């Protein structure tokens, strides 16, 4: 029945798809010299060498971005840096006066003010003291929410809002965490995929996969949570498969957006869901997905 297999480190596969390929972006490691050109300016992720003041070096692992004379290194793995208008998925960590604290994979906890949520009973209702006492009824510690970044405070922490029906408390689904830099910025981050499940691609690297509800498209909004509803086997299998596909393509550092996820799902159908946990299969799925994406781009 169960079939346990232990592989050796010597059999490890390299998950990088662009490894040794021409035209692949160069990945700088901390301490690596970027340039000895004295006329450039040092930006984020770089520093001037102590001994040799003319040499610019990388302080994080990532790719170089250049704007005129300004050189920055954008890290591959980092905490989420919020921007206004981003869609995020987060978890409530604390209920305070007039605000919720939300963990969004940023450096500091984000806040969700009670004045920036739509309370039941009309948008323009005044927030009363009762509302403040009821806060835990709407969202309590441990709940997951989808929200949008309303503003960024001077210390870098984020203020969120859920003033739209598409944002709100999340009920049944699976959360996947990927590096935030792999989420492609798009107009829309809520997708009902062709394969029969829906995803919220949070710009903060948290992805919420949930079953597509048949009645309405708004689906996840508001503060209601239907935990009684039993999700059938097909939906659960689709969600589990999507989860593994997302992890496969993120392991190979492919950008995540609706078509890359849909392609990965289609390419993964040759394998069983649990086979998608093994490194070789993950690489194969990522490889085929990249191939499909390139073919689509070329056509």
């Amino acid at each position, binding site marked *: *029945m*169960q*079939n*346990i*297999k*232990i*592989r*050796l*480190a*010597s059999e*490890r596969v*390299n998950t990088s798809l662009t490894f040794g390929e021409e035209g692949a972006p160069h990945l700088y490691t901390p301490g690596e010299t970027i340039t000895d050109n004295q006329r450039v300016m040092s930006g984020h992720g770089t520093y001037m060498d102590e001994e040799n003041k003319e040499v610019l070096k990388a302080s994080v692992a990532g790719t170089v971005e250049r704007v005129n004379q300004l050189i920055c290194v954008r890290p591959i793995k980092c905490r989420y840096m919020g921007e206004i208008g981003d869609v995020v998925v987060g*978890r409530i*960590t604390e209920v305070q006066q007039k605000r919720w604290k939300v*963990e969004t994979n940023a450096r500091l906890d984000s806040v969700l003010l009670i004045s920036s949520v739509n309370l039941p009973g009309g948008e323009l209702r005044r927030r009363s003291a009762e509302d403040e006492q009821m806060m835990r009824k709407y969202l309590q*510690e*441990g*709940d*997951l929410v989808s929200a949008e970044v309303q503003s960024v405070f001077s210390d870098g922490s984020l203020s969120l809002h859920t003033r739209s029906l598409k944002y709100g408390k*999340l009920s*049944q*689904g*699976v*959360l996947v*965490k990927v590096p935030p830099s792999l989420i492609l910025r798009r107009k829309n981050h809520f997708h009902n995929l062709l394969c029969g499940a829906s995803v919220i691609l949070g710009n903060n690297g948290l992805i919420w996969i949930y079953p597509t509800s048949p009645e309405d498209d708004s689906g996840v909004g508001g503060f209601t949570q239907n*935990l009684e509803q*039993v*999700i059938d*086997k097909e939906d*659960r*299998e689709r*969600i*589990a*498969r999507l*989860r*593994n596909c997302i992890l496969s393509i993120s392991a190979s550092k492919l950008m995540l957006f609706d078509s890359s996820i849909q392609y990965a799902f289609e390419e993964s159908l040759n394998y*069983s*869901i*649990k086979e*998608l*946990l*093994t*490194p070789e299969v993950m690489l194969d799925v990522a490889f085929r997905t990249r191939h499909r994406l390139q073919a689509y781009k070329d056509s």
Partner: protein
Amino acid sequence: MVKSTSYLFFFISFGNFLSVYFIFQNDLRNDGRSKQDYRPIELELDIVTHANGSARVRLANTDILVGVKTEIDVPTSNRPEEGKIEFFVDCSANATPEFEGKGGQDLATEIGNYLGSSFASPLSFDLKPLCILKGVQCWKLYVDILILECGGNLFDAVSLAVKAALYNTMVPRVETVAMDGGNVDLQLSGDPFDCWRLDITNIPCLVTLTKIGEHLIVDPTAEEEECSMASLVVAVTESGRINSLCKTSVGSLHPQTLTDALKVGVEVGVGLNKALNEALGREEKRLQSNKPERFGFLK
């Protein structure tokens, strides 16, 4: 807090929060595994050059490094014919922020004590071969276990790594023992490769069975561990004998569940031992070859 309905759902959990409505249905877990599937395991032997034996095991995200050092010691007076073995577990704060400061100490002691108890019987690990001169000199094995990353199921991963490291351990051969008054004069073999190896046949592997709702699952992820009420750790040898047993976390188990768990545990444990032996054999063959490469954490 956890609803114990017959079907649970997906879980909405990461971090410290237990807000879980988590159910298995149709034997399908969130990552597509069935109840008794393991995640991919990777093994490497002889990874630390300064140790007499070492191994690294990676079980999905759980990363364990074990080094074994041998030292000459005096046997205890009540067991003059036996050597000694001591386990030391270090939870690196790199693994999870909770291990910072003294955070990991309780867990480290728990793992260390349990390993100690499962090795205590001569039926699991015979300490007699480690005796050099009865009542006067013996070998002491220091087993240092370093937890580098936590992705759930620490006990199983640690036991695999410990068994592999002990398999890899080379104990120097003692050529002559001379007594000079009260002093013992040991002459070790001049050839550094003149060593003998430990007998690992009866060393148990630990199998954690986690109870979630009504179900017993094997190899829980960190999220699944958050959702569980109780776990049972069974030490199972190659031949399927249970050497020791312990229950972790707060919940309780029904006697019927316990007997079921033991049955499953033995079955899984035998499979795990078999898989480990097979992997050790292959790794040993690789190490015998000319200039075997060390992979470690890079590649």
